[in-house]
């Protein structure tokens, strides 16, 4: 066995979080509120939010579930970048400065870090996010490992909205399908078992479709699953130009 890494005593430190608060039952205006919390180096931003909620202010409101980056509930904007709160370690941020946490941009804020995700889900539904095939196989369909690999990257999407709400085009034009919907379209367009690539390519050839993308790569950088989002969008653009996947 190779060298075992000793995990030493976990150091603790105090950090300041500045959180964008909004509660329409109390005020029309959003405002920043600062909290100081003692954290350990293995703690995530989600742990800090919980610590504040559980020890200082129970009204602090945010979504979360799995707490290890697979359910997609807790996308927020941390120090101006879209991240999952449960996948961002405090120690990886500059702990000497105030850490800002605010809701993802471009979707209506409901309360504190909670946004209305319905416009995002609607864009996802609009690209027909399901296998469309008329064959009636009696057993499993066959698919070569090479064909399976063509859409592997885009199957990782957890619908957290980190990509779509990092996109400057989406911020100014809420009608734009946005990167996540295109990623989910890609997942079916390049699946050899699907028979309706044309339908989705038509939908994305719309004026609010892929051509709005300005390849700023914000989405790729924001994706907590490491999906090459901009590349997927480019592949959809090429498929539209070729007229087939």
């Amino acid at each position, binding site marked *: 066995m190779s060298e075992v890494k000793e995990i030493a005593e976990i150091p603790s430190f105090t950090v300041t979080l500045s959180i964008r608060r909004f509660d329409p039952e109390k005020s029309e205006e959003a405002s920043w509120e600062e909290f100081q919390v003692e954290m350990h180096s293995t703690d995530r931003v989600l742990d800090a939010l919980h610590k504040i*909620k559980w020890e200082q202010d129970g009204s602090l409101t945010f979504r979360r579930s799995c707490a290890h980056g697979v359910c997609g509930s807790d996308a927020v904007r941390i120090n101006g970048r879209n991240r999952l709160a449960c996948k961002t370690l405090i120690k990886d941020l500059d702990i000497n400065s105030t850490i800002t946490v605010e809701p993802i941009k471009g979707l209506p804020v409901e309360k504190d870090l909670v946004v209305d995700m319905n416009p995002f889900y609607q864009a996802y539904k609009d690209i027909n*996010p399901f296998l469309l095939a008329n064959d009636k196989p009696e057993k499993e369909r066959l698919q070569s490992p090479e064909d399976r690999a063509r859409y592997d990257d885009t199957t990782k999407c957890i619908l957290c909205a980190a990509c779509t709400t990092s996109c400057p085009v989406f911020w100014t034009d809420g009608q734009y399908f946005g990167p996540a919907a295109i990623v989910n379209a890609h997942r079916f367009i390049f699946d050899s078992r699907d028979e309706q690539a044309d339908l989705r390519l038509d939908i994305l050839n719309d004026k609010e479709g892929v051509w709005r993308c300005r390849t700023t790569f914000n989405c790729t950088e924001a994706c907590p699953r490491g999906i090459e989002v901009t590349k997927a969008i480019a592949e959809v653009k090429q498929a539209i130009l070729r007229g087939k996947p």
Partner: protein
Amino acid sequence: MTKVHHHEFDVVIVGAGGAGMRAAIEAGPHAKTAVISKLFPTRSHTGAAQGGMAAALANVEEDSWEWHTFDTVKGGDYLVDQDAAEILAKESVQAVIDLENMGLPFNRTPDGKIDQRRFGGHTRDHGKAPVRRSCYAADRTGHMILQTLYQTCVKLGIEFFNEFYVLDMVMTEVDGQEVPAAVVAYDLATGELHIVRGKSIVYATGGFGKIFKTTSNAHTLTGDGIGIIWRKGLPLEDMEFYQFHPTGLAGLGILLSEAARGEGGILRNAQGERFMERYAPTIKDLAPRDMVARAMANEVREGRGGGPNKDYVFLDLTHLEPAVIDAKLPDITEFARTYLGVEPYTEPVPVFPTAHYAMGGIPTNIKAEVLSDNDTVIPGLYAAGECACVSVHGANRLGTNSLLDINVFGKRAGIYAVEYAKTATLPPLPENAEADVVKLLEQVRSSTGDEKVAVLRRELQDTMDANAQVYRTEESLNEALNKITELRERYKNISIQDYGQRFNTDLLEAVELGFLLDLAEVLAYASRERRESRGGHFREDYLDRNDDKFMMHSMLYKEGEPTGEIGAGIRVGWKPVVITNYQPMERKY
């Protein structure tokens, strides 16, 4: 006054994880169906499952459903109902094909078939050697299942009530029998109540791992669904059997799939010894989870653990090709890098058992119908998935059998719920159906004591980790029960800070704690009453399995209110195990 909305459906499904959505896919096309979930569907914890779904497809080597049945029964330490295990194994092949046909992107063999890999306790010909039975999609099989089921629900136009917390079920008498009439749900966005009536009601609410501190479970897994059933005076079965997954990231509990060992990963102690060779000489690291978890805990107890506190062991993947790790185990190796800063290509990963899965739950028969005692069916009430106990997992679930369970019995729940709804009439709704929920919420809102929900929850989780985990004794379980009794009293003196109507998660965390206290008590009490060791339930004061006295399912009932005495208001019954082909034998691997 709380605003109350009314809805009527044929089939009402509570929970939008794998079992709930699989049921909805069967029910939706044939009956007016609603799915109510405290989360947006794809946030459900099915999505965190990693390794695979068992089915004897025999795509890569010889296999049979009969071998799968045997492995399931033996893995469950013979507490499995064998008629149910036969159905699970027989219907597994179609369940996988259903998913593939819906579009699930399984990994493929070179000739294009669904690929399969090894997993703990799954063997060729009754234990001769490990067999490749797990169908998988990298190490995100649960994610793929959840996405595929949701995609199919979107395709079918299934109606969802998302971020609605079901807090009560209303029962009514029809033809002299108690039947469910509706569920009462709290809409997180508005704080308003919704009474959702249905001819059939399906529970698919998942587990309750948050009674423990170290757990692979999501924050939202607080057992509300099972808790409601308990509060209605209906029984819970085999609650003492809780699975601790061997390989949680040390200190964090985040799951690292058994697929890591299926692909060749090895557990080692601080001396570098492959210690499983001593505990399970034939299948070593691929022994069932209860055995591996106990072996790990034992290594640590005997001083062979690693780290500054010698409190974990190591999962060694360093002998695997990085390309294999990237192709087959990308997510879990990423977890090790992100959360512990450990590079699995070159460094062994610190791991320790983590609370993972409830084998017990709401008793059902093989049609997913809920039982009100050992064999009486409650018309119109169904349960499937982790919240249910059918029982295919017995005293210890095999890896990959839970993704299978939700698909096989979720589908059955949907089919039989529709069949019932087709001839049933909507049960009458009792007056003031929302009264109990209004009262429950009002109690929490108006309570002005100085106890904090988060403090009580942490104390509960600490006592469960210390006293009801891998090793248990009469003394430790009494300590847990005493602590829970104390916490119940203190729970009456909580106060919350958010009194708003919109997105009030402060209020709901307080309500959820009530369910956690109930279920922790049931688990600890059932564990105390089972004075033997079997599967995931290990009693240091009763080391052996005792088939003469305990070859039975426990059935616990709530009778009356807690009084402050241990076990007050709990009655214990027992239910025979269904045996078809396999007589209990000693369990060796």
